[in-house]
């Protein structure tokens, strides 16, 4: 999808460095690993809070994730390609008349300006899918379906947003379910492997984007006096 209006370009810019993916992926990895560790090492007589760790991690991400991303961006992205207001903060902001954007840029401006669907269409999709799987009796062959369903959902729901996933990237995520069947992982811990796999996938994807961004935009210090 061509992103041409200033608002859409600003929203898309938020994902140019891969940092939101890396932060979400790291959260899933850390809290998924914590849940897995609990499952394996803590006696079964104690409560098994399967989903609690993932829920806690994603809640923490929604609450404080923006601060972490802003901290990282202020060191990596803003000095290289500049700062723009985070998309979600624009809820009380001003939107330029769409017709003027169309006149200035292209016909048919997007209906939404500078909005991000990352939390609703990526974070919450992972969250609810994990929740659904943990709450239902688990069979080992579920993993073969669980990962493709997650991959298709992420790909389809983000296809027309400011942060679309590539089809081959979604295909890799879908195929990881088969890998787990091949590894013969005990069914007890399989539901917790979903956030771990999604985490690895997001971190890998974010890292590739970040490396590409850093290579394309080497740091150049602008003399402060020249700035407005």
């Amino acid at each position: 999808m061509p992103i041409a209006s200033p608002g859409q370009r600003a929203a898309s810019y938020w994902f140019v460095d891969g940092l939101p993916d890396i932060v979400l992926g790291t959260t899933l990895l850390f809290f998924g690993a914590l849940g897995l560790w609990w499952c394996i090492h803590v006696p079964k007589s104690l409560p098994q809070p399967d989903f609690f760790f993932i829920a806690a991690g994603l809640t923490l991400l929604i609450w404080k994730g923006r601060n972490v991303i802003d901290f990282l961006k202020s060191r990596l992205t803003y000095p290289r390609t500049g700062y723009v207001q985070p998309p979600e903060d624009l809820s009380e902001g001003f939107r330029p008349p769409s017709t003027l954007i169309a006149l200035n840029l292209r016909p048919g401006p997007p209906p939404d300006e500078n909005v991000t669907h990352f939390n609703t269409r990526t974070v919450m999709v992972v969250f609810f899918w994990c929740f659904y799987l943990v709450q239902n009796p688990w069979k080992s062959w579920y993993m073969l379906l669980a990962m493709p369903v997650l991959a298709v959902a992420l790909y389809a729901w983000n296809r027309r947003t400011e942060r679309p996933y590539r089809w081959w990237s979604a295909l890799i995520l879908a195929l990881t379910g088969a890998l787990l069947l091949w590894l013969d992982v005990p069914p007890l811990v399989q539901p917790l492997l979903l956030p771990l796999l999604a985490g690895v996938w997001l971190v890998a994807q974010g890292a590739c984007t970040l490396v590409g961004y850093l290579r394309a935009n080497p740091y150049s210090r602008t003399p402060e006096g020249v700035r407005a």
Partner: protein
Amino acid sequence: MTPRMQEISQLDRVIHEPARLAIMLILGGAGEADFLYLQREGGFTQGNLSGHLAKLEEAGYVAIEKKFKGKVPLTVCSLTGKGRSAFAEYSNRMLGLLQSNGSSGHPAIDSGPPAIPPASPGAPPDCR
């Protein structure tokens, strides 16, 4: 002077200049942005952008503020209330002119956009 020419002469010349119109559009869509982002998005040189921002600031349309993001200083620009209302008024005038000329040849304009009420300074923004 014909009424049409009168309308044209009433266009806000501070905004009407293409580079400044681009700055207003970028800031309107993005909310706020720093100098470097504006420079890259608009394809401006440093001196050119500085000059246009100074004019917009002088007219009271753009606020330029030193901010800190994670202890890193940034020079952040944003539209003021006056800038928003001037921009809305400029848009209405411009679109009115284009429509009074019959078909503009642009689908988005020919479909007849809704009128944009000019925002009063200090009032909450009108769109979101």
